[in-house]
């Protein structure tokens, strides 16, 4: 294997745990779909269909790849469900994995449930800022939106999330 390919793999290994968390967020907590998305994203990088041009950090760039791949998988799964033979299986249903939900603590289960009720954009920006410790500018880059839009999603999402978590506590 050539040295750029090795360097790429080292970078991928470094971001792997965080990328799995991000893939889970993009797939609505569905572990099977998240693993599938992550594999497809790695394959894109290995194939050269996704090329790192150095304009952003590797992590920001790769997270954008994961986000796009998850969106492609969602569209494909939606199309597959329209197919008459879809009952034969093959497409993830996009629901959270029951086994993973069982393994979660009560605190995180509440957080995941409250997040699930937020609009996708808000959920993504909050996840990138709080879970991935990114700045709003980095989150905007990953989500493919402007910084101003990302800030709006952040503020609205955070307020809605706090409200829901407090509402459950009462």
């Amino acid at each position, binding site marked *: 294997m050539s040295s750029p390919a090795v360097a790429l*793999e080292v970078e*991928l*290994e470094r971001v*792997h*745990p*965080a990328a*799995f*968390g991000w893939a*889970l967020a993009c797939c609505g907590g569905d*572990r099977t779909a998240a*693993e599938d998305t*992550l*594999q*497809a994203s*790695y*394959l894109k990088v*290995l*194939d050269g*269909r996704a090329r790192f041009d150095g304009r952003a950090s590797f992590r920001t760039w790769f997270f954008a790849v994961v986000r796009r791949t998850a969106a492609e998988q969602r569209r494909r799964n939606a199309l597959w469900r329209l197919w008459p033979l879809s009952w034969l299986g093959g497409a993830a249903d996009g629901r959270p994995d029951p086994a*993973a939900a069982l*393994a*979660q*603590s009560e*605190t*995180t289960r509440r*957080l*995941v449930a409250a997040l699930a009720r937020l609009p996708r954009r808000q959920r993504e920006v909050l*996840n990138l*800022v*709080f*879970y991935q410790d990114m*700045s*709003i500018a980095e989150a905007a880059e990953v989500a493919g939106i402007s910084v101003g839009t990302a800030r709006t999603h*952040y503020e609205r999402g*955070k307020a809605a*999330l*706090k409200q829901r*978590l407090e509402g459950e506590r009462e």
Partner: protein
Amino acid sequence: MIERDDEELRERFAALRREHTIAAPVFRDTMAAARSRPRAGHRLGFAAGAALLLVALGLIRTVGNRHHTSVDLASVRVHAPTDFLLQLPGADLLRTMPRLGRVSFDRRTL
């Protein structure tokens, strides 16, 4: 950008991250699974082949239906372009039974 009153949210997300880190698949396994996936080119080729096959089958069926007419072979009479060569002078003589006192053929054909 995270304010002080966001500390609780940050704690919750940190707990979620810890749980996910423990449950994350091993990198090598994910990479091996990624490498064993069918390449996009292969999938596209397969899809294009399947689409072509479907189109070809559809065409064959459509054209076949358009030209399909039932033929009663017993009633078919084939006329070859060279049939006139077999029409010999006096051929009526071979097809008719001669009878006394009656001309059973056309003299003009002789």
